[in-house]
């Protein structure tokens, strides 16, 4: 069954009168129920734009996004909940309140908020920090709180915009394997944006590779490795093969985008 379908998506901005910047175009993809899709591409390729459109945060210029058959015209966190790159916790609210903020915004009742927030905070293993402030937690822990906030909506799809982008390598790995467990247990569809090759492969049932701006889909790669996965997966030949393929695709794109080297003897 398909949860999310993107059809012929294009997003263009008018940077100044008469000048149009096409962020992405001809994007068509589907996310099946329970599927984990990663989207990777060079920076500035419009992958976040695609994700924002999928969640109804941004109206497409052309094409449309369907959620279970209905067109997405505005965010609906019960269908698709966001986890943003910079955690975006509210520094003036404690951790428990932060986990409940999605529900608060979406208009849930007090008892429901309290119950679900506590449950999801325990689920991501941070129950003891309920009354701490965000600034007292490490970046990795804050991101788990942001995930708990999204999970509290019990959405059918999680939309994650470079969720580990702001973390150092070490924390990414640790958080990565924690998160793998968390997300596998929730059995939800996930769309995850990343610019890390390892992340793109480690997480994915399917990798969608985008080109440099204007971003289009240039390849889809299935990752067949069994779940649950752990870090040892990174040493498997399949992982290495995909990594080489991705490196090729992304590097190629980067090189195309980068300014041509100056020819000698100018």
């Amino acid at each position, binding site marked *: 069954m398909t949860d999310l379908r993107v059809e012929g998506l294009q997003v263009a901005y008018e940077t100044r009168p008469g000048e149009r910047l096409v962020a992405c175009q001809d994007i068509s993809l589907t996310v099946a129920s329970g599927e984990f899709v990663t989207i990777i591409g060079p920076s500035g390729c419009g992958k976040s734009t695609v994700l924002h459109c999928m969640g109804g945060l941004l109206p497409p210029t052309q094409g449309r996004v369907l959620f279970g058959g209905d067109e997405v015209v*505005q965010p609906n966190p019960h269908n698709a*909940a*966001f986890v943003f790159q910079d955690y*975006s916790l509210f*520094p*003036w*609210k404690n951790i428990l309140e932060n986990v409940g903020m*999605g529900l608060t*915004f979406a208009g849930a009742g007090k008892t429901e908020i309290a119950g679900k927030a506590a449950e999801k905070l325990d689920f991501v293993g941070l129950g003891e920090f309920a009354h701490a402030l965000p600034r007292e937690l490490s970046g990795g822990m804050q991101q788990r709180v942001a995930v708990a906030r999204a999970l509290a909506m019990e959405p059918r799809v999680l939309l994650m915009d470079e969720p580990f982008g702001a973390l150092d390598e070490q924390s990414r790995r640790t958080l990565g394997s924690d998160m793998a467990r968390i997300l596998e247990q929730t059995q939800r569809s996930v769309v995850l944006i990343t610019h890390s090759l390892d992340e793109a492969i480690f997480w994915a049932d399917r990798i969608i590779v985008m080109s440099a701006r204007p971003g289009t889909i240039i390849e889809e790669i299935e990752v067949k490795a069994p779940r649950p996965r752990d870090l040892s997966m990174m040493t498997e030949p399949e992982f290495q093969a995909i990594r080489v393929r991705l490196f090729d695709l992304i590097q190629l794109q980067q090189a195309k985008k980068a300014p041509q080297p100056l020819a000698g003897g100018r």
Partner: protein
Amino acid sequence: MAVPSVYAGRLGASTRTRRGTSRAEARVWRTAFIVGVVVLWELLARTGVIDERFASKPSSIVMAVPPLLSDPQVLEALGMTLYAVGASFAIGTAGGMLVGVILGLQPMLRTAYFPIVMMLLGTPKSLFLPVIMLFFGLGVESAIVFGSILTFVHVTVNVVAGVDLVEPKHLMVAKAYRASRWKRFRHVILPGASPGLFTAIWHGLRNGFTGVVIAQLFTATAGIGYLVRVYSNNFQTDRALTLILMVSLVLILVGTGWNHVEKRLTSWRPDATQ
């Protein structure tokens, strides 16, 4: 996070310790300076280097406190000034908060009207005083109107700057989780802008006070400003200075208290722990 320039004059910002400077040490130097000035003043006045009739001297000022505080005219003036400040503060802050929030949230209105507020901020507003007098007369009304204008301008500017402090990423979360307008305001904009709102209230109070005292100094027939004028004209410099010092003291106390309230209420801010 870019802090708007209006924060430059914020009370307390300069007393926040720089790295490596102990707060206690700074306090000792400050006290030493003040004591030094007082002692020097007293000495110069007693030795006749400066004319006591014009400059008074610290001991006379201290001696002038008890009679002043039991003088019904002074008490009435204090009451009058407090009333005018309270009214200015209420009117100016209410208006400034409303206009500031609206201008802060509506880019079009902001582009259209914020320059007017900024222009008012830059103009020496005392110039309006004679006109205000023409309209509102010599009574307490002129002081209230003038104080309200000053409060309004400063509150508006600081509220707009406060709303600018609201982080787009937090607004994005509100949108992604489909917050209603009210919830967005209540949970994101209000707390996010609170540093600016606190500054706004403080500047509003301080400028309202300034406005009222200036108006009374020039126009009124009652109030602290009026009394300072009368005392100065009658060469009762000690009384005038005592009044000025008392007013300054009250303002410093209120400001310090407000700073503490602010720190308590915004303890989530990373720099609040310092």
